[in-house]
């Protein structure tokens, strides 16, 4: 770097010193809360002892990383996480897109505004409120059971939905759909609205009905947005909705996912090394998945996050 260029840099830096000042709160917070925990990952490779601390605890290398793939409780949790995530993507990802396509066809402004207001509402409730609402809804003497009785006759037995292990996963999907489908339409509606109307006209002139127009004009036009959202979903394949799942767990349902195991083993049971190891592997896999999904998306559809 020539002397002139570096002195120009210095001049600019001095001119902007107030800008750097403005950035310090953010930089500091991020340093303390996002970067400082990182060295803690070393706990995954040590038999952590509170009294001996980070440096005094004995090094055990890949012992706990191996345990993740050997302990049946761990592998079961990993499999459960993957299973629920894949189902979620299959069911909950297309839903907002379909609903957005339908909402786009609603011309009556008042109806559209009113229904959107109602559809966005569940998004603002906390997951634990949703669980609370679900408890009332699925109660033995609640509306869902009342409905069952109304359909199948007064003799049908009332179902204990929440203690039925087979209902656990469908319920997760149902509550996720209820909470986030409406809100999810916002981004897609914006994308759909930005499609050039002339494309529709051209399709119509070529003899395309509404369905064909949707398939050949709308969907391809919203592909970039869709792929970005999908990449995010796939990157989070080994993560799960801790709040929802923890909230729904009860003594009758014995299903764990990675995040609940990390919490229970780590914070509650104090198995720091195992828990950190699991979190560590989960983080690496998530990063690789996001990068991988982005690469595939770019190859197949030439759109991606970066």
């Amino acid at each position, binding site marked *: 770097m020539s002397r002139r260029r570096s002195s120009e840099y210095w001049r*600019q*830096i001095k001119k*902007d010193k107030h*800008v*750097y000042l*403005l*950035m310090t*709160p*953010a*930089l500091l*917070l*991020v340093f*303390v*809360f*996002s970067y400082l*925990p*990182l060295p*803690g*990952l070393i*706990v995954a490779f040590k038999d952590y002892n509170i009294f001996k601390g980070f440096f005094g605890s004995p090094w055990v290398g890949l012992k706990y990383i191996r345990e993740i793939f050997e302990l049946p409780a761990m592998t079961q949790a990993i499999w459960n996480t993957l299973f629920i995530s894949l189902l979620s993507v299959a069911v909950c990802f297309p839903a907002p897109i379909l609903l957005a396509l339908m909402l786009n*066809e*609603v011309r009556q402004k008042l*109806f559209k505004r009113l*229904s959107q*207001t109602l559809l*966005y*509402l*569940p998004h*603002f*409730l906390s997951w*634990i*409120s949703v*669980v*609370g*609402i*679900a*408890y*009332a*809804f699925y109660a033995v*003497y*609640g*509306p869902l*059971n009342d409905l069952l009785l109304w359909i199948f006759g007064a003799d049908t037995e009332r179902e204990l939905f929440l203690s039925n292990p087979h209902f656990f996963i469908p319920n997760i999907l149902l509550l996720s759909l*209820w909470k986030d489908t*409406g809100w999810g339409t*916002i*981004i897609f509606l*914006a994308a759909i609205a930005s499609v050039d109307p002339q494309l529709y006209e051209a399709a*119509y002139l070529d003899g395309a*009905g509404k369905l064909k127009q949707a398939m050949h004009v709308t969907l391809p036009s919203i592909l970039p*947005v869709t792929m970005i959202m999908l990449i995010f979903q796939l990157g989070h394949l080994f993560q799960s909705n801790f709040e929802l799942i923890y909230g729904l*767990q*009860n003594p009758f349902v014995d299903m764990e996912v990675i995040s609940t195991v990390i*919490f229970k083993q*780590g*914070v509650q049971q104090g198995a*720091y090394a195992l*828990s950190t190891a699991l*979190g560590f592997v989960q*983080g690496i896999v998530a990063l690789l998945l996001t990068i991988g999904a982005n690469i595939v998306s770019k190859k197949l559809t030439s759109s991606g996050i970066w």
Partner: protein
Amino acid sequence: MRENGSAYRIFVAFNYTFIGLLSIAALYPYLHTLAVALNDGTDSMLGGITVYPRIPTLENFATLLNDSSIIRASFVSVAQTLGATFLGLVVQFTAGYALTKRQLVGRSALLMYLILPMFISGGLIPTYLLYSKLHLLNNFMVYVLPGAFSFFNVIIIRTYMYTIPSSLEESAKIDGAGEMTILWKVILPLSKPILATIALWSAVGHWNDWTTTLYFVTSGDLHTLQFKLMLMIKESETIARMIQEAIERGETNIDAIVHVTPEAIRAAQVIVTTIPIILVYPFLQKHFIKGVLIGSVKE
């Protein structure tokens, strides 16, 4: 568009009906919970409650609101929401403005520094161990400090600030204004809309948070409303104890207590916890949507 065919009319009818049903399905469970909260608990156990209470009573809410731990939890929730949102606004506003300066030396390095944590994170245990060393466990500040910075919010603020014409800054400079004065007197008033959006968004997020309590707090004094709700759902003793204490305090007569069931209390707690959001929601819906759209526009 072939919009007068009978096939299209059937589609439209189906569309409106379907969306109408979905909208009702979005609202119904909440109204039902409200009805249970306002209904006599013992009566609810007979079934058949839909969206209105059959035997209306305020007893469920009374039991809840007479419990000092619930009152305390609501104060904690409010303090958490206000504190975290306010700090977040200060931190993210200053950072957003700073990042609009394209001439800043090292700008892309700073952006990298801020964006990297989104991909690499320590995880729960390393965070827990750090908080332990920082004395943030069982400390009210754990509700305020860690959640203050969000990269998305900063980008949204920055995107919005790009639309503020630089001529305004320049003319202020010509009038002799210093940098801080410009920020305070020019940029800040013009940024009010985006700050309102971010503030509301953060506030909802902080109000709804209960995992911070779960992970980092053991002291009952620092429980939030959402956390209390979680306890009522997951631990049946919580409600039983609450009813027992109400009886011991002699505040409600035994006759009324019989009609206050755990299910009714739980429903009432859901309502208490969600009321602020519900009340504020219809007026602020447009702010939230604007925020989502700004955030999704790539520069």
